């Protein structure tokens, strides 16, 4: 079926539900994929310590098997799709019943969930293998693998859910795994703080999730159902009031903002880097953080109608995404910790995905999710490989010149960086280009027929592309170029080991996952070559979109597709390249030259940012300084971006948002204390004690009621008798 036919179908009104409950074995039994890691979790938890490789072998075996099943399911889906078009497979059973409402539990297998199964299992498998080396001598090795398994199971459970209640369960379970794994080294307070912050921030978003879920439960066609297909169908069929959809979509958006690190709730994500690096790669880059994006994609009709994405040029979701992608990118400039650079980069890339969904470019967002998982996991694991060698994450203090020591890691890191920067022909280029096309903003320069002309978002996306390329250049220079700056002091890494001698290349269990991921970072983009791409046959283009996007299915809104544009691709590439070139000029030329002159391994220009220059001998200097173009680049564009702008953003991040979160927490505690001290201890207790005093009007205090004096007892007796008599009177009188 060609793309054009799919388009035509999406315009026709879907008749009946495009969901079936019988299909290929691998699709019907897809629930085995999450089940295996879940069993492995239980196995490792109870028997792991007694196993030969302390439980790692069980975890790896289970995830490997899951991966195989996912691959089979992938092929089965291709065949299934070719056979009968986009017909999702749903198998469900009753979970519980309460008050005439039935809750189902089941799986919904379609292109989207199969794609997620593949991504999660492959990244998880590689991370498992990588971890056997990386945390090899950790004292909670077994425990670490148990929770990697549980996390994998929870994420797979989440993506396979056929109802939002089940999604909520999976959503929270991945949150807990993230909590446990971030706090893996809980002996140190910053780590447990980070774990707490992650969980609590997510919990704030969960308020939105809970309310949104409930609103959908009651709203969808008056049907009282959690079933995603039914809800989506009801919305596509126009059976749901706009007001309910607005409430639901805004509430769910809050959940997405916390889970997927969108601007203002993103602050937990960089802190989450306190966890072990494989966790950062698996959870905080490739899989868990995209749960929010996945949820939007799964419940797209809710957002498409609720946010009124079609035919508009601005909406909440797209704007949040756009702001996030720029702010996240700016913040990445001022980080010294290599993992934090990548963390902010993740924030920024998640912003791309959310923006894409917000402008109606569904396939682009999901495709970006797909490619991003590979190159970001690649980068994280690469940074872990470096950190493993130098026992630190600080680029400025303990890295530099690493390419000499670790050439293989270097190559994979460069590939990952180029893919992330979106340079042709690596994976990031294709997915980012699709997002930019999808904004429809290029329509100003020639109609591309998107869901609306989101010009502002296009510009933000362009700017973000330049930023991405620039900060990755900086990161690569500081880590791999210049001279090695570490090794002279006793740097302690997260294992508490001391650095010894020169760093050396990592072992095969670290490198092989890196090779595989960088390979995927190169080729993943070819999965969805843009339609109308003249260099290859038509049947090679749009494969990903064709099999993943539920075009024409009954539970997907009728969205329009923008036409890819050569001109936009070229302009976007030039912008990204420009960002890279400016940064490269600063680091690879200026800083490098100065380093050689001063025989030091510098990380920036000593007079670059803070020192102001006086305007004296202007003419001479204009010449010397080559018309100040350098200055303009360095001190205005780069410096402004790196300096005030990023710092201001970072300042806002640390001092306004973070502070607000902290303050809110502190205030809550303070309020709690006040309420407790004043209201609870004085007023209510006082009221109770006081009422005791009043009732004992004969003069004794409540505590003295037990005076031992006969007459007091008699008084109480009479008083009680009087009360009872009065009560009887009242009852009879009534």
């Amino acid at each position: 079926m060609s793309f054009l036919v799919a388009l035509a179908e999406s315009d026709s009104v879907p008749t009946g539900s495009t969901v079936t409950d019988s299909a290929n074995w691998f699709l019907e039994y897809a629930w085995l994929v999450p089940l295996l890691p879940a069993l492995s979790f239980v196995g490792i938890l109870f028997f792991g310590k007694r196993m030969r490789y302390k439980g790692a072998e069980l975890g790896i075996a289970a995830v490997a098997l899951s991966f195989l099943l996912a691959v089979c399911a992938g092929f089965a889906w291709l065949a299934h799709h070719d056979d009968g078009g986009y017909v999702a497979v749903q198998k469900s059973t009753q979970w519980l019943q309460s008050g005439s409402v039935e809750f189902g539990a089941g799986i919904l297998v379609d292109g989207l969930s199969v794609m997620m199964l593949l991504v999660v299992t492959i990244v998880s498998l590689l991370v498992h293998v990588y971890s056997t080396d990386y945390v090899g001598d950790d004292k909670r090795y077994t425990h670490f693998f148990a929770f990697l398994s549980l996390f994998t199971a929870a994420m797979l459970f989440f993506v396979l859910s056929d109802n939002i209640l089940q999604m909520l369960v999976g959503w929270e379970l991945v949150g807990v795994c993230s909590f446990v794994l971030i706090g893996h080294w809980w002996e140190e307070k910053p780590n447990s703080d980070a774990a707490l912050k992650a969980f609590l921030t997510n919990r704030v978003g969960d308020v939105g999730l809970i309310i949104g879920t409930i609103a959908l439960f009651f709203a969808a066609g008056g049907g009282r159902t959690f079933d995603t297909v039914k809800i989506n169908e009801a919305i596509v069929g126009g059976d749901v009031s706009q007001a309910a959809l607005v409430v639901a979509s805004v509430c769910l958006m809050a959940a997405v903002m916390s889970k997927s690190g969108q601007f203002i709730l993103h602050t937990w994500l960089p802190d989450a880097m306190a966890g072990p690096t494989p966790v950062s790669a698996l959870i905080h880059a490739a899989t868990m953080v995209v749960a929010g994006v996945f949820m939007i994609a799964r419940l797209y009709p809710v957002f498409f109608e609720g946010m009124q994405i079609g035919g508009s040029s601005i909406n909440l979701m797209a704007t949040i995404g756009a702001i996030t992608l720029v702010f996240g990118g700016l913040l990445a400039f001022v980080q010294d910790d290599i993992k934090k650079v990548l963390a902010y980069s993740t924030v920024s890339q998640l912003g791309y995905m959310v923006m894409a969904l917000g402008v109606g470019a569904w396939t682009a967002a999901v495709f970006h999710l797909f490619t991003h998982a590979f190159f970001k996991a690649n980068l994280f694991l690469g940074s872990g490989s470096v950190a493993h060698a130098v026992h630190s994450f600080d680029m400025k203090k303990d890295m530099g010149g690493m390419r000499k020591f670790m050439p293989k890691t270097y190559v994979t890191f460069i590939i990952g960086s180029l893919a992330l920067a979106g340079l042709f022909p690596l994976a990031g280029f294709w997915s980012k280009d699709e997002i930019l096309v999808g904004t429809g903003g290029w329509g100003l320069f020639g109609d591309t027929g998107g869901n609306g002309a989101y010009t502002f978002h296009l510009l933000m996306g362009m700017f973000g592309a330049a930023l991405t390329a620039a900060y990755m250049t900086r990161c690569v220079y500081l880590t791999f170029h210049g001279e090695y700056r570490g090794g002279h002091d006793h740097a302690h890494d997260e294992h508490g080991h001391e650095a010894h001698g020169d760093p050396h290349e990592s072992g095969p269990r670290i490198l092989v996952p890196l090779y595989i991921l960088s390979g995927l970072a190169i080729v993943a983009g070819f999965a969805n070559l843009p339609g109308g791409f003249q260099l290859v046959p038509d049947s090679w283009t749009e494969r990903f979109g064709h099999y993943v996007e539920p075009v024409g299915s009954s539970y997907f809104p009728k969205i329009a597709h923008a036409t890819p544009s050569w001109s936009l691709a070229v302009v976007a590439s030039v912008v990204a390249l420009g960002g890279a070139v400016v940064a490269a000029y600063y680091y690879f030329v200026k800083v490098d030259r100065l380093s050689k002159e001063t025989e030091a391994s510098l990380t920036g220009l000593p007079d670059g940012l803070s020192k102001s220059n006086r305007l004296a001998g202007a003419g001479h200097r204009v010449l010397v300084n080559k018309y100040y173009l350098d200055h303009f680049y360095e001190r205005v564009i780069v410096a402004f971006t790196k300096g005030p702008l990023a710092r201001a953003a970072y300042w806002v991040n640390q001092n306004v948002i973070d502070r607000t979160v902290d303050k809110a927490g502190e205030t809550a505690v303070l309020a709690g204390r006040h309420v407790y001290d004043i209201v609870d201890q004085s007023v209510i207790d006082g009221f109770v004690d006081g009422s005791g005093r009043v009732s004992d009007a004969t003069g004794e205090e409540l505590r003295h009621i037990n005076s031992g004096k006969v007459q007091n007892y008699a008084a109480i007796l009479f008083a009680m008798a009087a009360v009872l008599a009065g009560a009887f009177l009242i009852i009879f009188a009534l």
Partner: protein
Amino acid sequence: MDTIADNNWLLTVLVFAPLAGALVMALIPQHDEQSHKQVALLTSLVTLGLAAFLLIDFDYGSAGSLQYFVDTEWIEVIGAGYTIGVDGMSLPLIALTALIMPLVFVYSWNHIPEPGNAKAFLILSLILETGMIGTFVAQDLVLFFVFFEVVLLPMFFMIAVWGGENRRYASLKFFLFTLFGSALMLLSFLALFFLTEAETFNMLELTEIAGAGIPRGTQLLVFGGMFLGFGVKVPMFPFHTWLPDAHTEAPTQGSVILAAVLLKLGTYGFIRIAIPMLPEAAEAWAPWIGLLAVIGIIYGALGCLAQTDMKRLIAFSSVAHMGFVMLGIATLTDFGINAAIFGMVAHGLITGMLFFIAGSVKERYHTLEIKRLGGMLAQAPRLGWILGFVSMASLGLPGLAGFWGEFPAILAAYNPAGGLSEEVFRAYMVVAAIGTVLAAGYLLWLLQRTAMGEPPAEFADDPNIVDVSTTEWIAWAPLLLGIVLFGVAPGLIFEVTDPAVGESLHKCLEAGCQAADLAASSVGGG
């Protein structure tokens, strides 16, 4: 309501088996502590066995009717009968009680609190068990009241004799509060007797009458009396202040019983007596009950944040959790009340477990001051992990039992029974949802400061601090398993309670507060 009266010896034996055990123990000399423990444990195990038989024999197909029904004369003069029976609403709570007590006795095996005297302590516990099970099976108001009060005295003595430093104050406060509530409750029962034409204390008949013939104003007053009686026991804001004191001072076993079962007597009273018997008044009171419930949720959570003592923190968390239960009840929908019953069972398992942990921490560290604790994961890793697990369950993590008490209650609040204001209850829903964030806050905060980090210097080399012992494992394992089991398969409880709740609400539905018509339910977007 239909009744089924076969095997009618079962409930009577179940109720009085613990009392028989207590009588046997009375004959054993006081110094023979080992025999006391054996008899107590054996008795509770027999009770558990009977409860298990009940669970197997129970006709789940007609969970809406009273089964094992017995109705004989008791005190003819005042028309009180010995009427007992069990349906799907009380079954889970009976099972919970029967499960908790053996665990308490196992734990008591080597944890008899100061000042000793195992005989008295265990006898009191057995009397408590009779009282609690009796309350759940009673189908006659006088009988109900008697059992309800039977529970009061043993608990009072447990706190007053085996409690902490401030035990006198706490026990007196507990006693006064509860007695105050009971007095008003009794008045309401009497009012029901006299005001309905039937002149009966039989709960079935009173449910059938459902307040017919009583003027609306009087109904409101009568319901108010019951509200105070049950609300104190729950405890609802602002009648909760006895709870933290009682919990803090009570011995571990007392706290466990208090949290796991005693608090449920109040909520059970609401759904068994107050609402079915006075549906019209219930509808008028519901918004206020809901308001107090959500205040309790937020307030309890804030109170938790201010605590410096672990046990007190857990006690305050009960206020918040019971707030969710009451919110479910206040919606007056079958869905919400199902959630409330689930919440009761889940809270029993989870908070009971938390108090067990607090007891063990106290035993090891000789303090529950959160500031002084720390690094439990390093010194007693299993204890630390169990604390973490139970905290997660308590904050309502999906997949564990706590979630099914919380989430459906919030869900029910979105769409309360027909006569209630949707706007008001949706506002409650939002507040309750925010309460879940605070819950996560205080529990994780507790976890971080007690379990994570390095062990503080004063305990670093303390040989007392050992990991979970065998008796503790035996006492805790059923609770931990229950938390997982009901979290994964909530249907086990929902399916039992659902028909009974429907049955008890049907009068309420007829009386006009029927659940919003499904097809016509407006979705006017909050």
